[in-house]
């Protein structure tokens, strides 16, 4: 034997699953959605994503190396993922400096100031996004219109998201029938495939579903959070829609448009900021859906998924304390035949 025998405590074998693999699985799952936005937004989608990713990695490296003086962890894929998710929540064509500011907030404030990977309370990408949304509301809601096979480099025509149109229309006293009769209002098929307005990542329901199914198959996420969010949203919006279909959009519109699918499959399921038990996950998901629907229907913003997730993130430690797994052998009576 060339080297001394290793002694360690059991177990002596380990599954080949690593944090890195988990992160890269999520990245892979986001590829279809990215391809769709490249197709509809063209080069500007690529620029936003690239800038977000590069600046997230750079900030992580610089802050860890020079400010925190700890070993850098940019290789673990988490900063990469934060960058991609942040970009996916931004409109294509956002000024580059704003993306960089968003990355700084996401990595510097939301992640590293809490202690780095695993210690952050809020989803970093969403904190970055919400920071930009409240700081630069105008630029953050300038949605370039989706164009099939977009190859332009110039700024695209700006339009509004379906949810934005509904909110604005209802405010001016329009009915749902007249809003959806508008030429700009996308059809269900277009919403499903990705030809409506919105952030880079939330375009195509189909692509997001593909990614979500990949994550479910690879067991990176479980069904509890995404399905509960979508089901609760559908039920809540469905109730309002049944009561008054002229003042409230149908559940299908709510689920297919905006960040519902992106949030349900990719943002809310972020391991660090979601509860650890299945019971807790369901409570967490219901909370997100309720807040989202309330904001969408009654709030000032047309979209509420990011706020819903961030608010529920804050409740995760509490949920973890109150929803524990059932201990084996607790509170049972011995039954003897």
């Amino acid at each position, binding site marked *: 034997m060339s080297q001394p*025998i290793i002694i360690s405590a059991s177990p002596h074998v380990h599954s080949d699953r690593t944090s890195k693999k988990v992160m890269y699985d999520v990245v892979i799952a986001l590829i279809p959605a990215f391809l769709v936005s490249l197709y509809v937004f063209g080069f500007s989608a690529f620029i936003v994503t690239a800038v977000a990713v590069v600046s997230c990695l750079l900030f992580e490296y610089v802050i860890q190396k020079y400010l925190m003086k700890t070993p850098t962890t940019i290789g673990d894929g988490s900063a990469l993922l934060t960058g991609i998710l942040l970009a996916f929540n931004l409109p294509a064509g956002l000024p580059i400096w704003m993306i960089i500011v968003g990355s700084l907030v996401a990595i510097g404030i939301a992640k590293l100031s809490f202690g780095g990977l695993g210690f952050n309370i809020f989803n970093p990408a969403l904190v970055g996004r919400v920071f930009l949304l409240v700081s630069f509301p105008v630029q953050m809601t300038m949605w370039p219109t989706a164009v099939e096979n977009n190859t332009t480099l110039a700024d695209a025509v700006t339009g509004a998201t379906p949810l934005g149109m509904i909110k604005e229309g209802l405010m001016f006293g329009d009915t749902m029938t007249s809003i959806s009769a508008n030429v700009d209002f996308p059809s269900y098929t277009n919403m499903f495939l990705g030809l409506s307005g919105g952030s880079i990542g939330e375009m195509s329901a189909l692509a997001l579903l593909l990614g979500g199914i990949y994550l479910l198959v690879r067991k990176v996420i479980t069904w509890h959070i995404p399905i509960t969010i979508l089901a609760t949203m559908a039920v809540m919006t469905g109730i309002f829609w049944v009561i008054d279909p002229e003042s409230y959009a149908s559940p299908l519109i709510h689920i297919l448009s905006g960040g519902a699918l992106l949030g349900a499959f990719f943002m809310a399921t972020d*391991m660090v900021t979601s509860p650890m038990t299945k019971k807790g996950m369901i409570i967490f998901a219901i909370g997100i859906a309720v807040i989202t629907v309330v904001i969408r229907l009654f709030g000032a913003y047309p979209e509420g998924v990011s706020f819903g997730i961030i608010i529920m993130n804050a409740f995760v430690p509490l949920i973890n304390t109150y929803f524990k797994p059932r201990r084996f052998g607790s509170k049972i009576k011995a039954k003897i035949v």
Partner: protein
Amino acid sequence: MLKTFPKGGIHPPENKITSTKEIKRMTVPKVVNVPIAQHIGIPAEIVVDKKDKVEKGQVIAKSGGFVSSNIHAPVAGTVTKLDLVIDTSGYKKQCIVIRTDAKDPSNFEEVDFPLKTDIELEPAAILQQITDCGIVGLGGATFPSQVKLNVREGTKLDYLIINGVECEPYLTADHRLMLEKAQEIVVGIKILMKALNLKKAVIGIENNKKDAISLFKSIIKKEDGIQVAALQVKYPQGGEKQLVRAILGREVPKNGLPLDVGVIVHNVGTIFAIYEAIQYNKPLIERVVTVTGKKLENPSNFWVKIGTPIKDLIAEVGGLPEGTRKLVNGGPMMGKAIKNTDVPVTKGTSGILVISEEEASRGKAENCIRCGECVYVCPMGLEPHLLMNLSEKGFYEKASQEDIMTCIECGSCSYVCPSHRPLLDYIRFGKNIVKKLETTKN
């Protein structure tokens, strides 16, 4: 749908490379080191002295208390010294060193006893014989069997469960024993049923041992009250509580024993040892050991004398391969890494696992990403990530409230952790401290 326990569990690669290898008799070792603490409880008291001649099967250390066990000479020979030898605990412990008498014929006549089905002894005599022969639980816990069988009067018992699960990867000792000694094991079960006045017994076998399942099914057709339960392959099904839950659907209460739900669980190896002890008055001086490892020349199962140094076993399978970095006494999930090859085989050694360079090293521990994987796989419904944090930071009382003491140390949490965190290391440490705090409190 096969039966299993509902919560948690993992399925590591099985790697049962020795499952088709017949159990061979090992060459009689020249020297045996017999530790006096081979069982849980009080170490036995040495009753021989230096230079004493001992017969094969003679008592060399007497049970030192209620929870203790006799130890017998595995070979005929001379006691050369009473020395400290590193055993599986990693520490030097008192051992009786016996040099084998090369001329004594009893050392070399290895008879396979013919099957004997009539049970002559009465229940009280059976228990006494088990005590005298130093039988302990051979599944790995090495709990003295007579203590387990000493059921307080008034306890309602209705099932005997035989643990033939062998859920640890690599190990095949129980599997081979079940295939080769099925008739004897069934007699052993009947002995225990007679001793405990039980009407029903279930043999639990995981479905990766289909040959053993069908063999037992064909034998028990003639027997009343004995059943075979095929179980889904899932670690740690061999844990008593998980096994009872899987087979009978009964949940052993927290901090309780299977006895509390009317069940008594024994390993197949123990059953066979009991059979030999009752029918042929043979003390526990040898057991089946799987010597295995991916790089070994000829991994096999052996009948091994207690006290045989592990290096003799390794020589038997073709020596240590190049690049060996870890030796494990037991299976890869719950076994203990051992320091050198002088460590003797004890009553609890179910296997020797030789791990090569690539698999031996632990991954570097990273931050917890709070994925909750450890919570899902914990068969006891605990939160390993929380328990690790609590015992690392020294919040032992809180850890105790979070049921740290119910941890069965199966290692599923450490196995799945994608950040390679030493969860079980800290939980075990916390358990130790909590145990100490509790004993000082009382």
